[in-house]
């Protein structure tokens, strides 16, 4: 039996002593100035040219993909899209600091992490067109990616649910004795969910090697951060859970990389969670269903456009001699072409056959779903013109 210690370290005071917010003031890590120069006193993280360029190209690719897919949604070619414009650094550079074996559990605006892992343009398209080539079988809305071979858990829409799940996943990794951990991305809005509290507290108590990576981009749809919480962002909550915490400039790829690298080292060696809060801004609309002009000003957006993480990193790369802007422009153009080509090609791929309506509910299709499928097939055969997506292939 262990002796309990909930009072063992507590000091005493004789006057009513109010602990208030002002007690702490968490600064954020910044390495690159907005113009891409290294800040005085800052130390660049160890980052090979190759990795740096991979981060950069991933960010650029996502910028291009986002632009193109928002347009495709407007044209009615896909039903929904959700861009990460302005926030590419947070997910690309953090993913770069991980090991490939680490599990990624994301919210939905971390396509750059997925792309960094190697998800191809075609794979993105397959998911967005919900087609039969997509391993998730077209069951969820566009942007709900998932790729087992890339250790990227399939995204689910309910917010915050992945936070305690990530703690559990990490616990399992620890028990297997693997040198792997879990990273869990979420927005500052999702951090209001009860599952956030559950996940962080459990990870701390149960010593789970997990990075909780909060993208604080100032908004949850229309709700600004100051209607979301009153504390010092999400970072200040780490203290309450006894979780080591790092705040970082979310538009500074180098700072993100350094912070995540350090966090991973701590998580894996000390078997504990680390909380990172990346301060950024959602330059994009929340999604293609949203129009932010109703709730924020053009000036505010402009201020943040000036902090663009891609431009910032580009300047740094140029200063290192690792990037040639002209060549890069061609490269970006090629990406654009690639996206266009894949889009056109993939939109013709059919959806899964109707049998896949009932698979994967259980490990085996149970009797009642067999029956329902049978009835449905007969029905479709009777009215094939009404079910054009599947009728052609009902045997």
């Amino acid at each position, binding site marked *: 039996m262990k002796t309990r210690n909930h009072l063992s370290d507590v000091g005493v005071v004789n006057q009513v002593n109010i602990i208030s917010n002002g007690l702490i003031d968490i600064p954020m890590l910044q390495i690159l100035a907005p113009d891409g120069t290294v800040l005085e006193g800052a130390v660049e993280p160890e980052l090979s040219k190759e990795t740096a360029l991979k981060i950069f190209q991933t960010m650029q690719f996502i910028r291009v993909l986002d632009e193109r897919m928002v347009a495709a949604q407007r044209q009615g070619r896909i039903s929904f899209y959700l861009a990460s414009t302005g926030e590419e650094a947070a997910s690309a550079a953090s993913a770069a600091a991980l090991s490939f074996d680490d599990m990624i559990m994301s919210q939905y605006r971390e396509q750059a992490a997925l792309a960094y892992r190697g998800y191809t343009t075609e794979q993105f398209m397959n998911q967005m067109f919900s087609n039969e080539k997509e391993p998730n*079988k077209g069951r969820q809305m566009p942007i709900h990616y998932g790729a087992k071979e890339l250790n990227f858990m399939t995204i689910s829409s309910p917010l915050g649910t992945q936070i305690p799940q990530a703690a559990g996943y990490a616990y399992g990794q620890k028990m297997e004795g693997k040198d792997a951990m879990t990273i869990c991305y979420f927005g500052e809005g999702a951090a*209001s969910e009860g599952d956030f509290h559950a996940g962080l507290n459990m990870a701390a108590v149960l010593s789970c090697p997990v990075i909780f990576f909060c993208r604080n981009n100032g908004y949850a*749809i*229309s709700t600004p951060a100051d209607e979301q919480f009153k504390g010092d962002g999400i970072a200040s909550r780490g203290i309450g859970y006894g979780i080591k915490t790092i705040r970082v400039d979310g538009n500074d790829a180098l700072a993100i990389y350094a912070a995540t690298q350090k966090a991973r080292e701590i998580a894996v060696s000390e078997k504990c969670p680390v909380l990172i809060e990346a301060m950024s801004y959602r330059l994009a609309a929340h999604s293609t269903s949203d129009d932010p002009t*109703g709730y924020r000003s053009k000036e505010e957006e402009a201020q943040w456009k000036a902090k663009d993480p891609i431009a910032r990193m580009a300047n740094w790369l140029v200063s290192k001699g690792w990037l040639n802007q002209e060549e890069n422009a061609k490269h970006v153009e090629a990406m654009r072409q690639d996206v266009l080509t894949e889009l056109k090609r993939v939109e013709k791929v059919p959806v899964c056959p109707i049998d896949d309506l009932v698979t994967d509910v259980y490990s085996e299709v149970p009797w009642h779903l067999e029956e329902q*499928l049978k009835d449905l097939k007969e029905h479709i055969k009777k009215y094939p013109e009404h079910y054009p997506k599947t009728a052609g292939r009902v045997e």
Partner: protein
Amino acid sequence: MAQMNMLQAVNNALMTAMEENERVMVLGEDVGHFGGVFRATSNLQEKFGRERVFNTPLVEQGIIGFANGLASQGSVAVAEIQFGDYIFPAFDQIVNETAKWRYRSGGQFSVGSLTIRTPYGGGIAGGLYHSQSPEAYFAHTPGMKIVTPRNPYQAKGLLLASIRDDNPVLFMEPKRIYRASVGDVPEEDYELPLGKAEVVKEGSDITLLAWGAQMEVMEKAAAMAEKDGISCEIVDLRSILPWDAETVCASVEKTGRLIVSHEAPQTGGFAAEISAKVQERCFLYLESPIMRVCGLDTPFPLAHEKEYMPDELKVYEAIKRSMNF
């Protein structure tokens, strides 16, 4: 009278309720200045201020917990859950708290002045998490009322009645027809009764029962069946809990046949309750088994949404099966 779509009717009901009673408050994610993701709460904050119409942090269990507290204090709380699919984090607050508050306190306290609004249902390419119809989960919960309108006129009258009813009401709005369903709505204040089904169309051969957006499907199926000379009686349940077994059974005793349809998965859906109760009461009147035309027993799919849905063709086929039994 004005022409309104269902969103406008909901908005108009909220305006009416807030004007009439200053203790009415509206809360939820993005319901403030933005007016909600569907704009059902547009202009309310401008009109009634930030204290009566306010955004909450993103936490459904908190929204309902907070609204429970507000209502128990005597305020009239109208809480929005952004999508029916996201009501589950609040399940404990609803099922264990909202529904049991009055009973456990012997009527000393209650949250009768709480109304929970939420858009539900499929047909908008929403996949697993923007399409669910969770009514049956709540219909197993004594203490709750559950109400669904089929058109703008019903929406305003039922929502006003729900807000003013002295019991907690889950008001489920069929989002597929939010904009598509347009009709005459009185500008003035009116209420429609809770707990009462409505015979929307009389008929003699078979009863078709549904609620919300599914009413449209029933009407289309009935039109198809009429061409075959089958006379359908169409009933809108309107209140799912407590439900109007009397009206439903009277119809079934007349027609001898019943089809119940909903989008939610068949197993454990509310059609089961209706079927169980109707066969208990109308056993000797039934000429064929009560049939259910429902969603499949799968999560709500995306690519196969059309195939999944209990559409008019499926209902029409069921009508024929029932007639030919």
